[in-house]
């Protein structure tokens, strides 16, 4: 029974991986067209996946979109408030990478996002142990 469940899960994971790859390609094309805000919205949409590989694949797409942003204020102004929590989770994942350029960008976005969304956003990203990114 457990074996059947595992094979079903890995099929699901493959589906999710293909979906994430399509999303990545879409994000890249949006970035090339200078549509940074749409790129970020596409990246943040969808439920964060459960599987570790899917999470890493999803993170790569979000990372590309985050690094392409130059105007942080404008981006946050046009982003829906429902995306703030998930964006905060991705920012903390970016901060944990240790890469200098990623961390610089993530620190900038973190400051502006905290001003906009408040401490509740930070606490929700800390407290949510179920839907981690």
């Amino acid at each position, binding site marked *: 029974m457990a074996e059947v469940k595992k094979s079903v899960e890995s099929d699901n994971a493959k589906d999710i991986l293909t979906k994430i790859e399509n999303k990545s390609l879409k994000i890249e094309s949006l970035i090339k067209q200078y549509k940074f805000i749409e790129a970020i919205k596409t990246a943040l949409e969808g439920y964060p996946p459960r599987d570790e590989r899917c999470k890493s694949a999803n993170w790569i797409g979000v990372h590309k979109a985050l690094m392409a942003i130059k105007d942080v204020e404008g981006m946050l102004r046009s982003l829906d408030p429902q995306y703030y929590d998930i964006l905060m989770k991705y920012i*903390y994942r970016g*901060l944990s990478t240790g890469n200098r350029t990623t961390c610089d960008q993530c620190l900038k976005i973190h400051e502006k996002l905290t001003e906009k969304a408040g*401490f509740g956003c*930070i606490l929700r990203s800390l407290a*949510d142990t179920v839907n981690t990114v």
Partner: protein
Amino acid sequence: MASTLRLYLTCIRNTLEAAMCLQNFPCQEVERHNKPEVELKTSPELLLNPVLICRNEAEKCLIETSINSIRISLKVKQADELENILAKKFLRFLSMRAEAFQVLRRKPVQGYDISFLITNYHCEELQKQKLIDFIVQFMEDIDKEISELKMSVSTRGRLVATEFLKQF
């Protein structure tokens, strides 16, 4: 350079403001015991996600929170061998006098240079804002202290060498 430091400290300050909401919570396993849950990590429902904030490859800050305690571990910048030794000695000096600091941990967490452990009792006796100010100020001052120590070591070395070589 200075702006990344400011952003790094702001990020840590904001995260601590949000994470430092501690309350008294008696131990679930043992009667009449009260332990800092972040150190023991026995019950996952009492722990929040640990957060790692890196400024670059060398400097980082790990913030682990639980229901009644928060542990903050820092890794300070060490550019060369001399700074490495100075930082190690200086922070060991501070850690050994942890009683006087109250919130300092005697041994840093593995992989970091110094750790703080703040419990709900500290939050009751001391002001939360002041605690956060203390930690951020500590991070600013540590870098200055280590540069000062390095400068005084090189100055002394130069003086000693000059005096010694005068006889030749």
